[in-house]
C-alpha cells in the first residue's frame, strides 16, 4: 500500500478536517499532560498507519522544533506560575508548575500541527477544496486555501534553492556563526518574497485563462461522497473527543 492508496488518503476530507478540528479543540480544553501526549502520539500513529512516510513526519518536526523549544524555554520564564521555586537567577524564577505549563504549550503546538497534517498530507488539493466547499465555504475561498497550502511547499523549496544559490556563489555558511547565518537569511527571504509574488502573478493569469469564476454552476469531475467507513470513523472521532472531555474532568 502506498501513500496514495492508503485508507487515510481515501477517507472523505470532511472526516479528516473533522479530526483536526476536534483534536485542536481537545488540545485547547485540556491541561493534562497525559492527554496532550496521547493526542500527539495518536496523530503520529494515524499518519504512520496512513502511509505518510517517517521522512515527511521528521521534516515537519524539523520545521517545528525551533518554535517548540522556544516555547518550552520562554513560557516557564515569562509565566512562572505558583508553587515551590526550583531555580532563581535574579528576577527569573523557575517553578515546576511553570516547566509543566511550558511543556504543555509546546506539546499543544506540535500536536495541533500534526493534527492539521492529517488532512493536509493525505488529501489532494482538489479533494480538499471540494471538502471545504461541501462544508459550506464558497468555492473561491476554498480554492484560495487549497492553493495557499499547495504552494506552501513550493515556496519552501524556493527558499532552499535560493539559499543554495548563495552558497554556490561562495557563501560558506559552515564557517559562520548563528548571527551571520541569520543575517544571510535576509536577502534569501527577500528573494523568496519576490519569487512568490511572481508565482502569484503567473498563477492569477493561469487561473483566469482557464475560466476561474466563469460559471456560477461549477461542476466536479470526481465528486466526494461520505461512505459507511467515513461515518464510522467520524463517530469514532466524536467518541474520542467525548473521552478527552470526560478524562479532563475526571479527578486525579
Amino acid at each position, binding site marked *: 500500500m502506498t501513500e496514495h492508496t492508503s485508507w487515510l488518503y481515501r477517507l472523505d476530507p470532511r472526516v479528516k478536517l473533522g479530526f483536526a478540528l476536534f483534536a485542536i479543540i481537545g488540545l485547547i480544553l485540556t491541561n493534562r499532560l497525559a492527554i496532550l501526549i496521547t493526542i500527539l502520539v495518536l496523530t503520529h500513529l494515524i499518519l504512520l498507519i496512513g502511509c505518510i512516510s517517517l521522512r515527511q513526519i521528521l521534516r515537519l518536526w524539523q520545521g517545528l522544533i525551533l518554535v517548540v523549544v522556544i516555547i518550552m524555554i520562554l513560557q516557564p520564564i515569562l509565566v512562572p506560575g505558583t508553587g515551590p521555586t526550583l531555580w532563581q537567577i535574579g528576577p527569573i524564577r523557575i517553578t515546576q508548575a511553570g516547566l509543566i505549563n511550558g511543556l504543555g504549550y509546546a506539546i499543544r503546538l506540535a500536536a495541533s500541527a500534526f493534527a492539521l497534517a492529517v488532512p493536509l498530507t493525505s488529501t*489532494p488539493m482538489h479533494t480538499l477544496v471540494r471538502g471545504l466547499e461541501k462544508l459550506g465555504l464558497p468555492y473561491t475561498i476554498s480554492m484560495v486555501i487549497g492553493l495557499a497550502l499547495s504552494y506552501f511547499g513550493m515556496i519552501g523549496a524556493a527558499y532552499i534553492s535560493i539559499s543554495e544559490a548563495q552558497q554556490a556563489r561562495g557563501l560558506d555558511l559552515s564557517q559562520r556563526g548563528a548571527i551571520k547565518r541569520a543575517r544571510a537569511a535576509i536577502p534569501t527571504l527577500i528573494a523568496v518574497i519576490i519569487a512568490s509574488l511572481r508565482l502569484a502573478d*503567473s498563477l492569477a493569469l*493561469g487561473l483566469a485563462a482557464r475560466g476561474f469564476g466563469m460559471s456560477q454552476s461549477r*461542476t466536479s*469531475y470526481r465528486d466526494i461522497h461520505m461512505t459507511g467507513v467515513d461515518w464510522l470513523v467520524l463517530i469514532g472521532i466524536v467518541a474520542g473527543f467525548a473521552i478527552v472531555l470526560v478524562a479532563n474532568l475526571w479527578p486525579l
Partner: protein
Amino acid sequence: MMIDVQELTYTYPAFVPGGARTTALDRVSFHVDKGQYLAITGPNNCGKTTLCLTVAGLAPRLTEGRLTGRVLIGERDVQAEKPGMLADRVGLLMQEPAGQMFNRSVEHEIAWGLENLGISPAEMEARIKQTLAMVGLEHVPRDQPPLSLSGGEQKRLALASALALEPEVLILDEPAGGLSPLGRREMAAILSRLRHETGLTILLAESDPDLIIGLADEMLVMVEGKIVQRGTPREIYAELDPIAAAGVVLPPSLIFAQALDESQVVPITIDEAAELASKYPKPTPSPEPFGSSKQPPRLSEDAIVLDHVTFGYEPKRPILRDITLHIGAGEFIALTGDNGAGKTTLARHLVGLLRSDRGQVFIQGQNIAGMSIGQIARMVGFAYQNPELQIFNPTVREEIAFGPHNLGMSTAEIEQTIEDALTQFGLKHVQDSPPSVLSFSARRLVALASIAAMRSPTLVLDEPTIGLDVSGQGLVMEWFTRAHDAGTTVLFITHDMELAARYAERIVVLDDGEITADGSPAEVFKQGDVVAHAGLEAPFAIRLAQRLGDASLAAALTPESAARLLRDRV
C-alpha cells in the same frame, strides 16, 4: 473566429522611483481571419508576451500597465469582458505552464478548467480522452502528477487543458521554448494537426523558425513593440538584412544560402537547401566522412570526475545510473539530452548541490564528499537554469559583487571584475537597477555575469541561453569562448544542437540517466540512432549531408562551413 487588433498601445509603469515608463506595444494593428495561423516573432522584449496576454483579455487587468486601442475576438471587445470570461472562446498556452499546474493528476489538470465552465462529468471524461490524444499524451497514466512529467510533456498537457475548453482562438506564447529537439518536433506536429484538422484561429508568438515555416499563413516581425514587417514566412525571410538586424532567429538553411552567396534563392526548409546544394558538384570519393577538424584536446588532468555515480530523488527510481565522466581541465563540453534525461541532476552533482547515493565526485582531484557547497564554489562556478533562484541582491552591481566578495577578492579586484562583467554582458546601463524589475532575458544575463565575475577555473551552466535572443546568445557564447581560450573548463547544458556543434569540442549525450554518447561533435552526430533515441537531432549541416548522401559534406558542423565546402568544389 477572427481577431482584430486596433491601434494597441501598452505601457508599463516605472518600476523604480524616477524611472521611465516602458512602452511594450506601440500602435499595433493587425487582423487574423477565422482559421488563420499567424506567427509573431522578434527579439527579447519586442512585446510578444504582452500582446498575447492582451489579446487573451488578461492584460492589463491582471498585470500592471495602461492600454489604449481595442482587441476584438469575433465581434466582442475583450476588454469589455471580465478576466476568465473568455476561456471557452480563447485558449492560452503561456511560456512557463509548470508554475500554473496545481492539480495532483493529469486528468484533474485538464478537468479543472472544464469544472469552471460547468461541464458535466461524462462530457469531461470524453474531452479529457480526446485532448490527451490530440497532444500525444494518451500513453501517460491519467493519475500521474503533472509536475513529474518532462518539460515537453508539461507543455503538451497545458495545451490539452486549453484545448479541452474547445476555444475558437488559440494563443501560444513560445510553445517550443526550453524543449529538446524531440519536444520541438512533437509540438510542431501537434500545431500542424491543429492547423489542418480544426478550424482554430492560431496566434503564435515564437522565435523558433521550425514552428513558423510550413505552418504559419503569415508572420509579423516585432521590434520594440512595433510591427516592422508583415508577410508570408517566405516573403519575410526573403529580405534577410532587416530581420537579421532585428535579431530574428534565422532558419539554418537561410544562413547556409547566405554563406553560399546565393541571395537570389530563399531556401527556408532543409529540402530547399538540399536542392540548392545539389547544383554544386559532388566530390570525388571522400576518404574522411564526418572528419571534423574540431577534436577534443589532449588533456593532462581532470577538472571534475564522476566515478560510478548513481542518484535518485526517490528510492528505487534512479535519475542517474552509474555515471562515470571525466571532464578534462580546459575542455569545452556540451551536455545534452531530452527533457527529463537527468542533465540538471548531473550538473548539480558537479557543484555539490546534490550528493550521490552511490559513487564519488572529485573536483581538482579532491573528493567533495566532506566539502560544503561554499567550499566547492571556489573551484566551480554554477549558473542555474532558472535565474530567479540565483538573484537576491538589491542592485545588479551588488549581485555581481556577491560572489567575488565571498571569494575574498580585494576591493580593487572586485571593482575591476564588476566592470568587466557589466561590459561583457551589456549591463552597464542597468547596473544600479534592482535585478528583479528587469526583463527575463536581462535577469538571465545578470545571473551569468554574476558567475563570470567569480572567475572560476571551471564553469557549469545549466541551459544558459534559454530565453535569450540572437544577440543575448551571442554575448553568452562570446564569454564562453573567451573563458575557454583563457584555459577555463566549460560545461554547458543545451538542447540547441546548432549551438553545441558550433562551439563545443566535446558533446556528452545523456539518455534516461545514462551516458550513451561521448566524443567530438562529429563522432557523436555520426551515431544517428543513439542521437535520435536521446530525443535529439543532428545539426543542419549533417542532416543536409545525409539528405544529399554526401559523406564528405558531413565534415561540416555549421551551415557556414557546409557552404564553404561546397564553394571550394567549384
